[in-house]
């Protein structure tokens, strides 16, 4: 009797420990798709998966949000290590892609015979080539972009006698002199030029230093041929600008949970993507009048302003037993019709050129004119460099940015030199 119980318990335990390769029990022919956890993207996933499943009963898809974790990148790396990845995922930050490739977690997409023809329907070769990995192959489908731009308070600018948003560093500093002031006459400054997140955390610098660096350098990389190449005039100018903005007191320093731009305590928010427009529209007080402008650049930089694209892309994981079916689902997901749905449901821009000139998308932009500058900017964007040590390199920059700009402990030249030296050291340990 006791032996019988023991056998039963052992069987139950063993059965409980057994999973398929993706770690979750499912029917063999089903594909699993992980999406971002934001409600708009989940609604989009729900809609297109339902439509796909109706049209393709031979390759049904189960979708679910990426499991909770410190960050989706860490969840995905852990899943790759334990071989519990889904078939595909659509929330891939290209900055982490090289790590996934190194861990042999991804399927090479240019092995699919129609990869280039599908891609060329969405974008020119020049743009596609920005998503090529270090080994010369493609592991990601460029899906959506959130170009980082600058929001400015039109009323505050008008009241200060400034008729256009600052385009250069000289104009930005001049605007700071007029806009930073004591509004209520109590002897303390209560209105500033701009607000940025002051925490010296690596990813925060992707939304201030990095867009400004791309704009100043006309889109130059930080790392090339496994060497830091940012010890240049552009990086020094960006550090110098922020140091000057902090030194003159044009940047709000107090940290608060409320957005000072919405409270009209700062005139500029220099780090927003199209995703934030819906949020601002929902929360903004009635009198807030704002517009969107490109990131300012040093006074003598020619050509269009280039910014950080904050791309999110789609990949197929090497654990997939049906990569071909997963690829077919991706081609369905990035069709023109579904790109329009993505735009309408999430207000994030599909990486598709031309976007504004296409009549299919025209209606949306007429209804949402605030997103037009982002769509115009979308072609003039860059991603991050394809190096697995990217996080550490941004950490090095964040530390020096804090020392130079916020605390004034180092000259811009010294801070950029030190960040480059540390990056060299980081890249040397391979």
């Amino acid at each position, binding site marked *: 009797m006791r032996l019988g119980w023991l056998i039963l318990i052992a069987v139950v335990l063993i059965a409980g420990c057994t999973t398929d390769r993706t770690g979750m029990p499912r029917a063999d022919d089903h594909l699993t798709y992980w999406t971002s956890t934001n409600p708009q993207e989940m609604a989009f996933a729900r809609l297109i998966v339902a439509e796909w499943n109706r049209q393709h009963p031979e390759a049904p898809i189960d979708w679910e949000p990426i499991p909770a974790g410190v960050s989706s990148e860490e969840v995905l*790396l*852990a899943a*790759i*290590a334990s071989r519990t990845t889904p078939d595909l995922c659509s929330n891939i930050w290209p900055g982490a892609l090289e*790590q996934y490739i*190194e*861990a042999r977690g991804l399927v090479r997409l240019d092995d699919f015979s129609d990869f280039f023809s599908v891609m060329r329907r969405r974008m020119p070769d020049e743009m596609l080539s920005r998503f090529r990995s270090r080994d010369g192959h493609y592991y990601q489908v460029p899906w959506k972009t959130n170009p980082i731009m600058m929001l400015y308070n039109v009323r505050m600018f008008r009241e200060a006698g400034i008729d256009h948003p600052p385009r250069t560093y000289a104009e930005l500093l001049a605007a700071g002199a007029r806009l930073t002031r004591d509004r209520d006459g109590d002897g303390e400054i209560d209105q500033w030029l701009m607000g940025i997140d002051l*925490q*010296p*955390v690596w990813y925060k610098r992707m939304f201030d230093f990095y867009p400004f660096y791309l704009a100043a350098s006309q889109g130059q990389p930080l790392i090339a041929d496994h060497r830091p190449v940012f010890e240049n005039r552009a990086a020094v100018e960006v550090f110098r600008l922020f140091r000057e903005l902090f030194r003159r007191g044009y940047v709000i320093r*107090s940290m608060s949970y409320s957005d000072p731009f919405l409270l009209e305590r700062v005139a500029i928010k220099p780090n927003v993507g199209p995703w934030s427009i819906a949020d601002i529209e929902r929360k903004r007080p009635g009198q807030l009048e704002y517009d969107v402008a490109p990131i300012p650049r040093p006074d003598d930089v020619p050509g269009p302003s280039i910014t950080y694209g904050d791309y999110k892309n789609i990949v197929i994981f090497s654990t997939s037993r049906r990569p071909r079916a997963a690829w077919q689902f991706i081609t369905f997901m990035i069709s023109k019709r579904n790109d329009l749905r993505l735009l309408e449901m999430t207000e994030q821009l599909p990486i598709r050129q031309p976007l504004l000139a296409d009549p299919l998308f025209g209606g949306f932009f007429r209804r949402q004119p605030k997103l037009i500058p982002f769509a115009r900017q979308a072609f003039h964007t860059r991603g991050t460099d394809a190096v697995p040590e990217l*996080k*550490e390199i941004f*950490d090095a920059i964040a*530390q020096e940015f*804090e*020392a130079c700009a*916020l*605390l004034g*402990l180092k000259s811009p030249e010294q801070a950029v030199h*030190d960040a480059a030296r*540390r990056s060299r*050291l980081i890249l*040397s*340990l*391979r």
Partner: protein
Amino acid sequence: MNQSRRRQRKARRRVEAIGYLMSFPYVLHFLVFGAYPLAFAFILIFHRWNIYLPMKWIGLGNIRFLIHDALIWKALWNTFYFVLIHVPSQLVVALAFAALLNRHLRGRTLFRAIYFMPVVVSGVVITILWQQLYAQDTGLLNRALTAIGLPRIPWLTDYRLAMPSIALMATWKNVGLYIVLFLVGLQSIPRSLYEAAALDGASEWKQFWHITLPMLNPTILLVLILSTIGGFSLFVEPYIMTGGGPANSTLSGVLYLYKQAFFFNRMGYAATIGFFWAMMIFVVVLVQRKVVERDVG
């Protein structure tokens, strides 16, 4: 005769077997949680490993990185700075309170319990409480300062003040433990020594200087070593209060090790820092032993 010898041998073997059996849990615990991690960490020193990929042999790469890594030297300096403030203040405060609590005071048991309380409360909880106390705009300390017309102090946001602020908090938290150790030491000093000194006309201060301090030498050494090791293990306070900032002024060695291991997934380099840190503690404690034993003993 032979039979009785055989019986004796059998009994001895049984005792030995019981001995092995009794020590087995400890040996197992040591192998699993002591020897294995230590050996694995040592192997890691010569490898690059990010958990997700197989380990890659890089020879002395991690050690070379450590030598050229400005941040580890910054962390070492920060830790010395912390120890330099924390250990003497810990010693002085703990000894002063222990001497006070060793007298026949009313309610001294209650005071002993109160001073020991922070030791048993979770370090994270205490750190969060102190973070609130130190807050620039809303902290109790700055509100008290502004109430009496003094300016606010940027306790944790000024790179010159952040580490002393953390050291002050750490002293407050740990002092209870060292008070207990000193109390034990004080109570083991024979009363006859004080009585003889009093008869010879020695003042209280002279008694303290010539009897209490020399007799407390082993306790002082113990407190010194324990608080130095504690100082080198500084982690929770900067991790929660400052994240190592501003400008890496509160980056401790263990916090840097943690960041390398679990933030950047550089397990090999983190292991290298771990061994380097253990070496540093060993050297510092060795120096302390020599100095304290020679001077006070």
